[in-house]
């Protein structure tokens, strides 16, 4: 009786100190985040873009994407030689970033493009993470021939030059959003397989996993309940960084002309409008491109900051 009581007491103490350690850890993380102004800027930018994306249909009537007013397409007229003069005229008429070839306001189109771009980025990254967790965890945990086979397949995909695979994919499977998403996914998943495999391999050798094995826990349970939760931070950092990278790649495909519909409000597609008219109407590329840059930068700042905060080696 006495012994049992003592045991619960000591367990209680351990739990309390664990909780204290967790809170201290969190406080320290927040302190590190606060100390770094760039990370704060990243967080604010991400919040700004997400809120704008959520409110996009309130801010701009989505129907305006289909309204073409060719009397307003300043960008294409021959006398629009000295751009910033034209730009000033446009500001007079409340088209801050100018108008595109269909006479639509570019700022409005950019706002309408945000939810599409962000949700596609999230879809592709979560698809890649899911794929990577399945293959990478199995490869790292089971090992042997299966590991070798999975690694060799990822090697093949790593050897492909840059965008070529995505472009061939997009060209073969037709011009629709699903095929474009699959195309970017096809390029992106191998990174996660390697990352997660490495994490699982490192974690597998730790003493607590040996203890769990000795305690007779099932392999699947050990993998999903104990190993994977401990590998979450590097994956989180990589995924945050990749949200920016995916938007860049996806909009590059759109820019190169894989868009299913040239009038679709998507940032890369908006920019591709200006390819033949760059010197007459630079705003067609400059502003949508700048938007892509800032979104990618926001996620990169956030991911880079998270890495510093979550990396135990850099915390000391």
């Amino acid at each position, binding site marked *: 009786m006495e012994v049992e009581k003592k045991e619960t007491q000591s367990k209680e103490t351990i739990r309390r100190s664990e909780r204290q350690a967790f809170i201290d850890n969190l406080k320290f993380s927040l302190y590190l985040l606060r100390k770094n102004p760039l990370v704060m800027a990243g967080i604010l930018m991400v919040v700004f873009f997400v809120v704008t994306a959520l409110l996009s249909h309130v801010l701009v009537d989505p129907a305006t994407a289909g309204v073409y007013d060719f009397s307003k397409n300043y960008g294409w007229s021959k006398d629009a030689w000295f751009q910033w003069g034209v730009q000033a005229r446009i500001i007079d008429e409340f088209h801050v970033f100018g108008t595109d070839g269909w006479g639509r306001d570019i700022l409005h189109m950019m706002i309408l493009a945000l939810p599409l771009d962000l949700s596609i980025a999230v879809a592709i990254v979560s698809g890649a993470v899911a794929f990577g967790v399945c293959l990478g965890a199995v490869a790292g945990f089971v090992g042997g021939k299966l590991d070798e086979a999975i690694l060799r397949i990822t090697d093949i995909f790593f050897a492909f030059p840059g965008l070529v695979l995505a472009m061939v994919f997009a060209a073969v499977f037709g011009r629709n959003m699903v095929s474009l998403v699959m195309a970017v996914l096809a390029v992106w998943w191998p990174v996660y397989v390697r990352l997660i495999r490495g994490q699982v391999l490192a974690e597998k050798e730790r003493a607590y996993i040996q203890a769990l094995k000795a305690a007779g826990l099932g392999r699947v349970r050990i993998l999903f309940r104990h190993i994977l939760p401990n590998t979450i931070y590097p994956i989180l950092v990589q995924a945050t960084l990749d949200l920016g990278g995916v938007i860049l790649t996806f909009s590059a495909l759109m820019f190169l002309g894989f868009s299913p519909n040239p009038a679709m409000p998507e940032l890369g597609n908006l920019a591709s409008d200006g390819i033949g008219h760059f010197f007459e109407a630079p705003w067609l590329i400059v502003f949508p491109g*700048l938007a892509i840059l800032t979104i990618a930068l926001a996620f990169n700042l956030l991911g880079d900051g998270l890495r510093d905060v979550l990396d135990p080696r850099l915390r000391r």
Partner: protein
Amino acid sequence: MKIYVYIIRRLILMIFVLFGVSVIVFVLARGFPSALDPAAMYITEHTTAEQYAKIVEDHGFNKPLYVQYFYWLQDVFGGDWGVSKWAASQPTYKVFFDRFPYTVELTVVAVLMTVAIGIPLGIISAIRNNKIEDHVSRLIALTGYSTPSYWMGYVLQLIFFYYFYMWGLPYLPNKGMVDEFLLGTIPRVSGVPILDGLLAGNLTYAWSALVHVLMPAFTLAFISLGTLARLIRASMLEVMRQDYIILARSKGLAERVVIYRHAMKNALIPAVTLTGLLFAGLLGGAMITEYVFTWPGVGRMSLQAVFQGDSNFLLLYSLVLAAIIVFTNLVVDVLYAFLDPRIKY
């Protein structure tokens, strides 16, 4: 494991990887209904129906896909990479290797610029950790790899070509790899314009080539210097915490000596490997930049090949670049073992 056993093992794996790459490209480019008829690359307006039938028969285009693959493989081992429709049905390897030196030139200059900017940026970032210099260099690095390359290319053109021209300043050219009137004035030796100009003793040509490469190379360098700068920073921070650095400081060496003589040597090892990988990656990743600057390299050609369904060119392009990427990986790993005696294979 002895190092040569390791190298042989990796070379065998390389063959496997190249085989996989060729299968994937082949299936994608030939195996789907949306793919272009591969026989279309061989025909001209003078081809008769009989000749067409013979082309189809010779190359096995009417056979099942896996049989077609072996036909292709047989051709390739015989040195026949097929023809490319786009370039007036020239042999594909000629189309490719005529343009490849231009891409190599662009990539080499871009890598030099990346190293020249990225390494100092990373070192400053590390020695002034969490100070204002670190934040600025981090911002530059992250902006670099958040920038769409076409945007960077166009903005550079707008400023250094268009506005400089409008303002009457000396401006940078925005198209091609040398001035048009200089094309064909010197014999082609290596194919690399700057080098050929120097070899021919024609400084006008070399200068023109150098001026033409600046903007596209800077575009590539800007988008890739972030990776290098961040890596240098991380490895520098890691090294600065080592005991031998503390020792060097405690024996009274100047901070400058500690950083440049002791820390930097070890911190630059990962940079060597990354620079190799960067080179391989940029060779295959320059297509958008080449497109924006009308650079006549293989990247822009591959873009055209995708749109025109030129599967012969795509197969050659992806195989050569995959071979370069895999081979660079191997060289870098072996080099790593030489640079860092702690690493064993």
